[in-house]
């Protein structure tokens, strides 16, 4: 779950991380009493808003409405701006960067910081990036914060405020099941306050059930992806035109890889997982068809998944939607023969290996065989 800036800041504030005052608006006329002078900020789930013109200053109410009118509806790297957040303008003395994520190799949370905030953190030279592991079992210890502050070389008073932000951010990270907490910039104001200038928060999807209050807040999906998500199906839209349906993320990726190696391009990635419920398979197929692929490539390697049940779902969906999309199927596992028979009855092509299936799909797309 990714959160828009204003929502992330609302959560930050709950954890006592200082944030600027701000108001949200979907229409210019909703802007009544913004904190002036303010920054009008496009609310989109993508970085680089500033450079794209999605963050602009305003001095008066009229100007704020004017700027909002310009920003609302903008397209920023493929994301349409539906809301703006009008925030008190900070007098920036210094910009820091603070990030918290999980380091897989160390099996521990990783705290990152740099005194070169405000810019894209990937562009910060490695040696200017401070990294500190946090042993989750014993929690955030003072030495971690000490080491960080030492690296940031801040005045004592500012350092103490930053230390508090780090502690609160870690608290949030653990309690809200965050994958990522990022504050860039963490602003030191001319008045000597430390305030979160921006706020990025990604909450672990797997922990959604523990945070019912966040349900439906993720906006980083296409309409079809959202529909799939609501049905509990892993479904991702890509740039190509061949629909890939497989079971298991690794196998689905391997199938896409094979397709690419043969000169094809995946248009949808649908991971059926372990299910063999024909109704679910049908639903998945219907979603796939809605994405209008030129060919559908089915690759199932069955464990519990019964091949014939999957095939039956495919047949039903094709029948009911009167779809004439060519299908290439490669199915291994329980009741493999029956599955092939069913698929053949709807005119699908059978393949033995992934490589062969990919080759066939690319051929079919090009009008053959």
């Amino acid at each position, binding site marked *: 779950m990714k959160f828009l800036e204003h929502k992330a800041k609302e959560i930050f504030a709950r954890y006592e991380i200082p944030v600027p005052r701000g108001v949200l608006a979907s229409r210019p006329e909703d802007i009544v009493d913004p904190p002036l002078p303010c920054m009008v900020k496009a609310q989109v789930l993508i970085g680089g808003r500033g450079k794209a013109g999605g963050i602009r200053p305003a001095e008066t109410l009229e100007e704020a409405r004017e700027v909002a009118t310009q920003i609302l509806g903008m397209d920023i790297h493929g994301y349409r701006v539906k809301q703006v957040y009008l925030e008190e303008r900070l007098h920036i003395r210094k910009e820091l960067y603070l990030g918290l994520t*999980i380091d*897989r*190799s160390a*099996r*521990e*949370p990783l705290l990152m910081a740099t005194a070169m905030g405000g810019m894209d953190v*990937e562009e910060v030279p490695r040696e200017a990036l401070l990294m500190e592991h946090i*042993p*989750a*079992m014993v929690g955030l210890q003072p030495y971690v914060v000490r080491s960080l502050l030492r690296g940031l070389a801040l005045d004592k008073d500012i350092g103490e405020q930053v230390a508090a932000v780090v502690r609160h951010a870690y608290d949030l990270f*653990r309690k809200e*099941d965050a*994958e990522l907490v990022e504050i860039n910039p963490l602003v030191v104001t001319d008045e000597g306050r430390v305030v979160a200038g921006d706020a990025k928060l990604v909450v*672990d*999807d*797997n*922990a959604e*059930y*523990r945070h019912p209050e966040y349900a439906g807040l993720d906006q980083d999906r296409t309409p079809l992806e959202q529909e799939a998500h609501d049905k509990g199906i*892993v479904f*991702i839209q*890509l*740039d190509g035109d061949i629909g890939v349906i*497989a*079971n*298991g*993320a*690794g*196998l*689905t*990726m*391997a199938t*896409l*890889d*094979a*397709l*690419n*190696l043969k000169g094809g391009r*995946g248009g949808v*990635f649908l*991971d059926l997982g372990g299910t063999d419920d024909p109704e679910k398979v049908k639903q998945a197929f219907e979603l796939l068809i809605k994405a209008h692929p030129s060919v559908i490539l089915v690759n199932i*390697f*069955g*464990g*519990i998944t019964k091949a014939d049940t999957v095939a039956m779902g495919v047949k039903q969906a094709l029948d009911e939607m009167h779809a004439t999309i060519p299908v290439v199927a490669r199915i*291994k*596992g*329980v009741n493999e023969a029956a599955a092939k028979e069913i698929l053949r009855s709807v005119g699908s092509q059978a393949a033995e*290996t*992934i*490589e062969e299936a990919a080759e066939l799909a690319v051929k079919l797309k090009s009008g053959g065989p």
Partner: protein
Amino acid sequence: MAVLLTKKARVVVQGITGHQGQFHTRAMRDFGTKVVAGVTPGKAGSKIEGVPVFDRVRDAVLKRKANASILFVPAPYVKDAAVEAIEAGIKLVVIITERIPFHDCLDFVPFARSKGVTLIGPNCPGIASPGQAKMGIIPNLIFKEGDTGVISRSGTLTYEIVYAMSQGGFGQSTCVGIGGDPINGTNMVDALALFQKDRKTNRIVLVGEIGGTAEEEAAEFIKKKVTKPVVAYVAGRTAPPGKRMGHAGAIIQAGRGTAESKVRAFDEAGVPVAQYPGDVPKLLAST
């Protein structure tokens, strides 16, 4: 021999009364595994496939001498079940369940290590030593006894590759599905070290995927410590950056964790990388 799992394992199935637990209890027994007990709170006294069910793992340890556990437990209850198994003295815990909150794993994975417990998974297809025992969900029929070790981050892709290996004449000593989650109990390096030591294993297959740096670390370890031939496959070589491909935790992060970086690391370690899963046995034949 084999690594981690042999026929000596006395397996308790946590979540045995569920659909998956029941199905795989049968499959594991068919494979030759000694499934000695099941655990489902509130279901003590019943039997599943002839296996006695207990309320607590401790009872399975005391009454049935269980020493290994496999979890078919819904994600929200895995932390509880895993800690229960560890505290009951189980020394090998396999967690099949996917979609477990990362922060739960941050708690129970290091805890398992602190207690000297080998944890496999979560979000994995389990472990199998053909001719000995299986704890997991990989189809029995694709295996063949042999001397090749398999380490895989993936699920069904593991089936695909093991199947191709068996077809191509390369049986397995043990196949360890370490799982695709960011935080796992046994990682590639851990499993490599075990296979390097195992006298039954003469070569190793690594199945990786994009995201994380497990493959890069494995390559580094191979360069330094592994003398047996290793062959690899990496899934997601053509995945578009920034898109998360399912639950596999395959998020591509700036420079690190990409398929290119992994393939390059394997190249430098002298590990041939297969283009298609089906090419793995061919590469094995030429090592």
